[in-house]
C-alpha cells in the first residue's frame, strides 16, 4: 500500500528524516510514536506529499509519488488525512465540509455524495450538527467532522497526524473511539499519536522514531513490554508517567 525507500528530508541544513524505509500493507494499522522533533509528522506528511522528500522514493497504491509528472491530485484523493488542528473549512457548514471535495474534485453525483455525507456524519455521532459551522462546534466535534470529511472521499488509506493532541482531555476518547471502530472495519491507517491505549487496541505495528530515524518497529506487545532500544524505553517511561 505504502512503500518508502531511503527517504531523506532536509529543512535547510536540518536533517529531519534520515534514510527512512517503511512499508505499510493493505489493511494494516501502523502507529508512529516518538518524542517531539523526531520527524514523525514530517514522515506522515511525506506519504501524501505535503512534504516533498529531499531524496528517496515513495510509492502509494503502486504509484510512485517521487516520479516526475505524477498526478498528485489523483493520488491524494484516495489518501485521507486528519490533522492535529482539524483544518476544517471555516466558511462552510459541517455538511458542506464533508461534501465539498467529493463534488468539486471527484465530480460525484451531488445527491449520492450528500447521502453518504449524512450517513458518515451520523456514524461519527454528529447527526444534529449538519448545518453548524466549525466555530460552533467543540474541538472533538470538529475532529469528528474532519474524519467524516476524509471518509467521504472513500479513501484507500487514512493518515492521522496527532489527531487528539489539540483536544481537551474529555474529548480525546470520542475521537479515539471512532478511530478504533475504523480500524476494526479494516481501514488501512497510519497514525502519529502518543495515545498508548489506542496503539495497544488498534495497532498491528508500532514504529518508534527518534532523531529522524526509525529506532525500532514491532507489535504493540513487543514495543510496550520488551522495547529493545534504550531510547524507546526512556520515551515509554516518560509517557507512562503522564498517561497513568
Amino acid at each position, binding site marked *: 500500500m505504502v512503500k518508502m525507500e531511503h527517504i531523506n528530508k532536509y529543512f535547510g541544513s536540518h536533517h529531519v528524516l534520515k534514510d527512512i524505509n517503511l512499508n505499510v500493507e493493505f489493511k494494516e494499522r501502523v502507529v508512529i510514536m516518538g518524542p517531539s522533533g523526531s520527524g514523525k509528522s514530517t514522515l506522515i506528511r511525506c506519504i501524501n506529499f505535503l512534504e516533498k522528500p529531499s531524496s528517496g522514493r515513495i510509492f502509494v497504491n503502486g504509484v510512485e509519488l517521487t516520479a516526475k509528472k505524477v498526478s498528485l491530485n489523483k493520488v491524494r484523493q484516495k489518501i485521507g*488525512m486528519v*490533522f492535529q488542528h482539524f*483544518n*476544517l473549512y471555516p466558511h462552510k457548514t459541517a455538511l458542506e465540509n464533508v461534501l*465539498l471535495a467529493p463534488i468539486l*474534485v471527484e465530480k460525484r453525483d451531488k445527491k449520492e455524495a450528500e447521502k453518504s455525507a449524512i450517513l458518515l456524519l451520523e456514524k461519527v455521532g454528529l447527526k444534529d450538527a449538519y448545518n453548524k459551522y466549525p466555530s460552533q462546534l467543540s474541538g472533538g466535534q470538529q475532529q469528528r467532522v474532519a474524519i467524516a470529511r476524509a471518509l467521504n*472521499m472513500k479513501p484507500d488509506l487514512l*493518515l492521522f497526524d496527532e489527531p487528539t493532541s489539540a483536544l481537551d482531555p474529555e474529548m480525546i476518547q470520542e475521537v479515539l473511539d471512532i478511530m478504533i471502530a475504523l480500524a476494526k472495519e479494516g481501514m488501512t491507517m497510519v497514525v502519529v499519536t502518543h495515545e498508548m491505549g489506542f496503539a495497544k487496541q488498534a495497532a498491528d505495528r508500532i514504529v518508534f522514531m527518534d532523531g529522524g530515524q526509525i529506532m525500532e518497529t514491532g507489535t504493540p506487545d513487543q514495543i510496550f513490554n520488551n522495547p529493545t532500544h534504550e531510547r524507546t524505553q526512556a520515551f515509554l517511561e516518560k509517557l507512562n508517567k503522564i498517561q497513568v
Partner: protein
Amino acid sequence: MFDTGPFALFKWEKLFSDWRIFAEGFATTISVSFLGLLLALVLGLIFGVLATSQFKGAKFINRIYVEFIQNTPLVIQIFFLYNGFPHLGIVLPVFAVGVIGVGVYHGAYIAEVVRAGIQSIHRGQLEAAYSQGFTFWQSMRYIILPQAKVIIFPPLTNQAVSLIKNTSVMAMVAGGDLMYHADSWSSNNLYYGPAYVIVGLLYLSLCLPLARFASYLERKAQMSP
C-alpha cells in the same frame, strides 16, 4: 460682494450654463474608473495569487510587475502609453490609455492586497484542500479566497478610491476626463475658481461614499472572528 474675485457670481453662471462640458467629463471619468477598476481587479487577482504559488518563475514575474509599477510615477506610465507606444506602432485612443494606465497601476497595488489576504489564511487550509485532491487553483477559488475576501475588501475599496482620483492624470494627455474638461474650460476663460471647486466636489461625490463603505467593511471584518 460676488461681483469680482476668483469666485465671482458671473463665473458660476457661465459654468452652470456650460454644464454639459462638465457632465461629459464626469461621464468619461466614471467609465474610465469602472473599466480601469475591472482591469485592476483581474490583474491584481492573477498576480496576487501567482505570488503565493509554488510555480517556478511565478513569484519572479509578480515581483517584476509589482516593483516596476509601484516604483515609477503613474504620470510616466501614462506618458509612455500615450507617447511611447506609438513609436512601437501601437496607437491607443486616449480613453484606452486611461483605462490601461490606471488599471495596470492599481493592479499592482491590488496584487499586494490579494497576496497579503491569502497569506493571512492559515497554511493548514491549503494543506487540507491539497490532501483532498484540490488543485492549486481550485483551492484558491473554493477554500482560500472566500476566506481571504473579508480581509481583502477594505483595502481593495481604498484602492478603488485612489483609482478614481488617479484617473485625473488623463488630463495631462488630453484625456477628455473631468479634470481635463475643467482645465481646458477654465484656461479659455480663466474662471479657475468655480471649475476646480465643482470638479473637486464631483470627485468627492464618487470617493467619499466608497471610503465610508471601506471603513464600514473594516469594522465588519474586525467584528467577525
